């Protein structure tokens, strides 16, 4: 189920809220869990079984880790089992086809012929949001192991944490430690509910008015025939994609945070105006914060972080970003995207804080960082390297020689599209981020939220089905 859909807004949400608030305190988590399973099962009812298995395993591991008198070895077994099972599920459903395909290609390239693997391994479908909930579920046992959290009171509380529909399929990745106290007790207030739906309304409007129109510009650019894309159209296309993915994902986070707030939870923020970053290092402190901090705490630091000398630090940065890229999707383009970001992180660290670059004016640094990010988005968006290189070629003037290029660029340069782009530019660089806008929640902002909700619904019907981009990961 998609937040920006008729079924969610007008059937699921009212029903979920009614059942949640009508349930007695002791049953609220059960009700939230059941509704979350309905929400998740809407894509494919069988996927809920997978989530349930993952939840059972991690709950069991948590029990093992926190059992009275548990030895260090027992705890280690618990956390290892949890990590291996979650990564195993992820590996099978997300990376198996990729691995088999690449092994097969390598084998053919080496002249060894076809690798005898069952055919179905090539066609495993990816359960929606699996990358998010396996990470969340795994964080429970890791946090317990590290002593960063207390165990869930019962299985339902834990299942509620893993499956919670507001952030289940596209984050923010809520680590167990950050909501453990809220699972035990949290406040339900009228003011909190209002703050929640106002945040939801703003997020919804961001998706409908900013992200989706940008997608409509980016899509034909990436689908353009070889030679069919002029340099200005290519830059417009990638800029539109950069806005699309930012507003799409941050809209989802706004809606998730708002929905969480409506049922009393406070989820961590996931974005902090990433395109205002003056370096790639800063970008990763502002973009998809819940993923970057997860990777930092559970991967980069255990690898040694920056404590084992420069070379090891650079290696760690690169490795973490490669894995971060692969986390997004089992495709070499994502690995490339991660590699460029990792390389840039290492390069910036190598240059140090007193480099020539750091003495440039802020606006120039923001501009340079944005251009680097744009180039990396090409790999993120492209279906394969061929499309990515062709697109990059077009950006730098090696396209646009086909007669149809004029047709596409003429279509894309319509005034309405420029208005959309300029609005996105203004919202990105001139306005504060949504939590800041809603920091002081005045009646006017709540009413504005209502207006945005109503108009967004009208545009939602007009735009048709338009799922969130991060559902794919």
């Amino acid at each position, binding site marked *: 189920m998609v937040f920006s859909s008729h079924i969610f807004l007008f*059937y699921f949400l009212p029903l979920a809220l009614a059942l949640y608030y009508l349930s007695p305190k002791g049953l609220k988590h059960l009700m939230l869990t059941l509704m979350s399973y309905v929400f998740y099962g809407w894509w494919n009812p069988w996927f809920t079984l997978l989530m349930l298995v993952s939840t059972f395993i991690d709950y069991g591991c948590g029990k093992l880790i926190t059992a009275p008198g548990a030895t260090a070895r027992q705890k280690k077994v618990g956390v290892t089992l949890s990590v291996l099972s979650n990564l195993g599920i992820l590996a099978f459903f997300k990376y198996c086809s990729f691995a088999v395909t690449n092994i097969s290609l390598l084998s053919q390239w080496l002249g060894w012929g076809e690798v005898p693997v069952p055919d179905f391994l090539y066609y495993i479908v990816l359960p929606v949001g699996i990358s998010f909930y396996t990470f969340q579920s795994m964080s429970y046992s890791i946090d317990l192991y590290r002593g960063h959290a207390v165990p869930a009171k019962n299985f339902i509380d834990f299942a509620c944490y893993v499956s919670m529909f507001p952030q289940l399929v596209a984050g923010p990745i809520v680590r167990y430690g950050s909501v453990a106290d809220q699972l035990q007790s949290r406040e339900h207030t009228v003011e909190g509910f209002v703050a929640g739906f106002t945040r939801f309304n703003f997020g919804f409007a961001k998706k409908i008015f900013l992200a989706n129109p940008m997608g409509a510009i980016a899509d034909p650019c990436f689908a353009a025939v070889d030679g069919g894309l002029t340099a200005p159209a290519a830059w417009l296309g990638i800029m539109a994609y950069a806005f699309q993915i930012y507003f799409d994902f941050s809209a989802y986070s706004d809606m998730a945070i708002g929905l969480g707030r409506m049922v009393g939870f406070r989820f961590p923020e996931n974005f902090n105006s990433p395109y205002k970053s003056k370096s790639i290092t800063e970008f990763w402190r502002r973009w998809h914060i819940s993923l970057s901090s997860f990777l930092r705490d559970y991967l980069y630091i255990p690898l040694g972080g920056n404590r084992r000398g420069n070379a090891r630090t650079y290696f760690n940065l690169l490795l973490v970003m490669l894995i971060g890229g692969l986390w997004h999707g089992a495709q070499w383009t994502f690995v490339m995207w991660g590699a460029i970001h990792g390389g840039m992180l290492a390069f910036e660290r190598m240059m140090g804080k007193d480099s020539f670059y750091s003495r440039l004016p802020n606006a120039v640094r923001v501009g340079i960082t944005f251009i680097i990010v744009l180039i990396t988005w090409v790999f993120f968006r492209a279906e394969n390297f061929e499309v990515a290189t062709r697109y990059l070629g077009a950006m730098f003037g090696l396209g646009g020689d086909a007669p149809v290029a004029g047709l596409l660029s003429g279509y894309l340069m319509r005034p309405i599209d420029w208005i959309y782009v300029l609005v996105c530019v203004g919202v990105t660089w001139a306005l504060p981020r949504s939590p800041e806008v809603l920091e002081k929640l005045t009646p006017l902002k709540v009413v504005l939220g209502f207006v945005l909700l109503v108009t967004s619904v009208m545009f939602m019907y007009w735009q048709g089905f338009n799922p969130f981009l991060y559902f794919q990961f």
Partner: protein
Amino acid sequence: MSTEMKNPYDEHGAHLDEIKFSHRLGWVFVIVFLALITLPPLVRNLSEAFNLDPAEPKWIAPVKLFDFPSSEAEDLFLKKKSNSSRITRTSPSLRDHLQAFEKGAEEADFAGISRRVLQQELTGFLGEGNQKVILGKDGWLFYRAAFDGLTGYGPLNAEPDAVTKDPDRAEWYQPLPVIRRFAKQLEERGIELILVPVPVKPMIYPEEISGKEVAELPLRHPDQLKFYEALEEAGVRVIDLSDSFVKLKEAGEQVFLKQDTHWTAATMQAAAKEVAAYVKGRPWFGELQPDLNPTVQTAGRENLGDLVGMLDLPEPRRLYEPETQTIEMISADGGAAVTSSASKSPLVVLGDSFVNVYDDPGLGFAPENSGSEEESRSSIGAGFAQHLAKELSLELETHVANGGGATAVRQSFAKRPDNRVREKKAVIWVLASRDLLLSETPGGKASVQWRDVTFSDRIEEDKPEQTLNAPAGTITLTGTVLERSSIPDPKSTPYEDALYSAQIKVGTVEAGKFGETEPLLYLWAFKKRTLQPTANLEAGKTYRFTLVPWSSKTELHTLTKQDDLTVFTDPWFVEKMEEVK
């Protein structure tokens, strides 16, 4: 370990807000929000519940959710990728049921009204089209699929796959190998394939989208000519009309209707002449005996255009005026319609709505006050096939389906008895060139499907087909559904009405004489984009059918038929049906 612990990740923790309104006002806001998300569906479902027709009970939307399909049921909508999800997609019916329920819920009146009102303003004030229509300059409208076909991957390069694409999307086949195989099948039967890809509007009028004059017209996809060459190499004769269209434009003719995807009547007639000239030049043409002495009747007709229809405006005439065309209706001696029953003609025309636009009254050029539903479906007689027949002085066998030019029409022809097929000299296949150019994603959106077809090996004896004179309603029988064709989502098709096919195993013949044991049936899939009760036929279930010969339902012959079954008997049309419990 303590039982409570503070959040260790507070550095990126939850945002605290400062509330600037009273508790009471907060309650008012909550009530407004809840009203906004509950009242619209509540009002819709209550009004539906009160308006239920007791004679034809149907469920209101929320109850439909629990009306699960049986485990034997086939997917209602088009077949998905069969190999995409062997592990997890074990219950496609349930999943599709949920999706169908969601679609049903989205059909709420308030959703449609919102969309249409908004479209009216967006079109009027901002010049915005929608997902199907691009608004060009000076009142020109363009079908988005035609634009996508021209600027996208094209016919030779398969669109790359990616993990980010829906794994359950319908299987896509490239047109080139499919057409090559079709040409080979025809060649084996001694038939020549003449392909007439009709140029699409942006190829001739690109400046009406881009605002810039194009140095060299027609504007072709970079691979278009290479594609035609590859077809020629495979023995397919390709008549590319693009250059002729440009000449017409340069001569001051309007080549396409401004508000419609199709050509003007004059362009169509010129195209018919060009194709006829080519056909007359074929070596076998001299052997054919002219059997048509056509008469021509001229009439002025007007139509708002299918693209205006696709904009789905509540008040289209506030923004658009109908376009007038002078059409020439062709009839045989005595005024009989041409091409309606010429199943023994040596020439066959396969085609999509470009063939139909001035023949099928459903496409807008019907005379006003056409009378009954049956009358309003009778053909106009001014289409491409009639004009080609006139030029050749030959009656033609036609297989035409709006939106089905790629596969449905070939399927229809392939079902003809083998001895009848082998009597043909040539197949003239007229279809929008966008069907050839579209790649997987935009092709899927435009419901274009390329599939191989299987030719029938049935031999027909020289006797009238079916019991042509059987009065309607006299054959009533029960039958169990063996298989059924899938149907597209009516909201996604360029046509409003469609039929589909099913094969049944006959149980008891209750009225009339019926000799077949496993007949092929045609049923209504949707009318005016609304699924009909007959669309829900489920494999394995038994129904009572009232049948009439398909050949007697000539008024339905131009409709799109979803028929992916390899059943080669003469079809029957289902007038009525009810489930036998």
